[in-house]
């Protein structure tokens, strides 16, 4: 049971890592002018909800299997995702808005956020891997 939980979290975490990398690549394409703002934002907005769901899934899994430390580790990121999604003003076209993305250094802050998430997911990946191996050995 333990192992199953961790295997699932591991796969989820892998998906989240790939998603972060995708975000970083798309944002840097925008920075270097390979795509325009509208294309970039529509691509990224499509994956905001899946990222939210993936992160929430990992958090809930940890809660359900009563691994409190990892659960507490995941909660800030999950709640930040939800907050970011809910706080989008009504007139904006999603979390990534093409009219605002070049203004007020938003591109840089989105890039920083994506990098931090990538680092966090990598950390989680190794935690899950280690826990999974432990669980498999103990079974």
């Amino acid at each position, binding site marked *: 049971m333990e192992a199953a939980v961790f295997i699932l979290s591991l796969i989820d975490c892998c998906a989240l890592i790939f998603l972060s990398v995708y975000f970083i690549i798309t944002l840097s394409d*925008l*920075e270097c*002018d390979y795509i*325009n*703002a*509208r294309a970039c934002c529509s691509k990224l907005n499509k994956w905001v909800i899946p990222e939210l769901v993936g992160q929430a899934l990992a958090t809930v899994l940890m809660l359900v299997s009563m691994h409190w430390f990892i659960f507490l580790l995941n909660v800030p990121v999950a709640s930040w995702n939800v907050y970011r999604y809910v706080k989008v*003003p*009504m*007139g*904006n*076209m999603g979390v990534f808005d*093409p*009219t605002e993305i*070049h*203004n*007020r*250094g938003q591109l840089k802050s989105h890039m920083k956020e994506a990098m931090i998430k990538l680092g966090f997911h990598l950390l989680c990946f190794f935690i899950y891997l280690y826990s999974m191996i432990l669980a498999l050995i103990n079974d």
Partner: protein
Amino acid sequence: MLGVPKPSPVLLPPQPYSLPSQQYQQPPIGPAQLSSSLAALSLQAQAPEALRVVNLLQERNLLPPGPIPAPTPCLPQDLQKLNCNPEVFRCTLTSIPQTQSLLNKARLPLGLLLHPFKDLSQLPVVTSSSIVRCRSCRTYINPFVSFLDQRRWKCNLCYRVNDVPEEFMYNPVSRSYGEPHKRPEVQNATIEFIAPSEYMLRPPQPAVYLFVLDVSHNAVETGYIDVVCQSLLENLNSLPGDSRTKIGFITFDSMIHFYNLQEGLSQPQMLIVSDTEDIFLPTPDSLLVNLSECKELVQDLLKSLPQMFAKTMETQSALGPALQAAFKLMSPTGGRVSIFQTQLPTLGIGALGSREDPNQRSSAKDVQHLSPATDFYKKLALDCSGQQVAVDLFLLSAQYCDLATLGCISRYSAGSVFFYPSYHNQHTPAQTERFQKDLKRYLTRKIGFEAVMRIRCTKGLSIHTFHGNFFVRSTDLLSLPNINPDAGFAVQMSIEENLLDMQVVSFQAALLYTSSKGERRIRVHTLCLPVVNSISDIFAGADVQAITGLLASMAVDRSVTASLTDARDAMTNAVIDSLTSYRTSVLAIQQPGLLAPACLRLLPLYILGLLKQKAFRTGTSTRLDDRVFAMCQLKCQPLAYLMYLVHPSLYRLDTLINEGPQNIDDHIISQPRVLQLSVEKLIREGVFLMDTGSVSFYFWVGRNCNPVFLRQVLGVQSYADVPLNMNHLPELDTAESGRTRAFIGWLREQRPFYSVLHVIGEESPLKSIFMQNMIEDRTESALSYYEFLLHVQQQVSK
């Protein structure tokens, strides 16, 4: 001509005129050779006036008598005389700090304010087979590059050395060879190139104009359709364009009406599309027709349009579907769409609800609903921008129209918003006249199509925020489907790398556009400013009007993203922080009182004016649409007109004969002194004029004013006879009348749009609006100027 007096020349003694050298041995002065001359300049000694310490609490008369000139950058005279006109390109700090930490220490915002398409009386135009640009950063050659020898030039933005092409060595103006630095591109900071075909993504588009008119019952009631049709009939021949110009019309209420104007028809044919869920174009062509070929049909349509809907009972307004139809019609070519709307859109996609609570208009707390309610208009504006369609919005409504949402259609498609609140042909004749004259300017002013603008800065500086009506397509590329001469822009910059080893930095704004005659042109403006590394030099070069303009745009952004109270606090803190920084870093001797450098002495007054402006004021009843429109104006007006919104000018008119007359264009025009905006200046015996910029002049008649003056200028016998709704000064044959009308006419000439004159007295209904402009006085909800200074002083001394 639109103009403010030119800035006074720089303080260096004039250089002796040097004859063109026959032997071209020495390379000419360029920024690379500046080190010796700049080192000799002691910037502080050269600008003693700017740093003179002023105690704001003691000196009452801070306003200069006339218009305030822009500060002159501290450059050697041969560079400064080539520099860009400050009416076109202006920086908040005319001496750029060397490092970001120095800029942070000064607590002043760093940004540029541009008016790139301003109507200019002299514009050098160059037709050249090759446009010389830097190979790496693509900067256009400008007066501030340095020539290393005859064959190589060094870019002043990225410092790359480029070759001078062979054609460039020949100067067509002086027919001489071997003097590339004498060519017009290197002698003028503002220049226009005729662009070759590499600068075109598609053949230059013709001028295409589409007019979309609201014909619901409400709209017909106001009578605006008569004015629009009449204006169009009069100005049909002066619409900018050539033989390819196209025109089209759409009207809408709960259904969309298209007009088939095909050549050969005996009269215009109306085609009605009632399915607003799925808009389609009824015929593939002849909805947008060639103006010269179908002129009679267009004129027939304009003559019959007002009567067509006179009996209509439709009250719904399907603005969203009408916009979609307009977009479908215009997307093959691009062009300009002018929308006239008189109520909230109620039908179809983009329908809006009333968000304003009339009871909250004068609340001292935060104002809600300053941001759009739906993203439909923003998305449509982005679609339009992609197809080079700009949408201008004319809002003529008495009720709440959610301008915060509707305005998005213009904001991101580089259109303009015009607002005529409570417009009605009979009830508001002053508005009608203003609408008529504004329409004339709107229809006949110069226009540029499918434009893009790029702002480049010297390596080390970068732009991080943009203000104005456009869509930022990539890091510094602004997409402007239309560019017009009344649009202003602002950008904020930061210093990414320290500007060591640089004496000057340059900024270049390049606007690539298609003229209305189908020519692809590039208008280039280049500005050069010195770099300094001491805080007192930064303060010496501060431009108080540009700082106010930039702070206004920043505050509008903050009110929408955060809250209005945040924005108000931020503005007050801007004053407090900059004066604190001045006190701690620049002042040698600490004196009591609120001390400011002379160049920033007007900053607290202007910020107080902003806090009391319609856009930001709290506690006074302000309709939400008025507030949002004021915010739009603050963001997109050029600086010269913006300053009237912040600090109107007050003049005394009954003593015109004593004021210094000036000879302008062979007319003698008296120039009265600008007065402080306080009721203590409004003496009972005087007659005053308040100039609030692009909307109104207020002609205030004091109760005890000289009846002779009233007779001579207004044509009435006494104060009691002054009519309540007078909007024009009668053309009487007296000297006083002539002088007064000449002065008001001269003020009117300096702005593109029409300002209505209101004659008001003590009992006039407009008195309260007039008094709201007295920003130095205390009101129930706001501080007086002196109290504001005390508050600032208290914070500065902490």
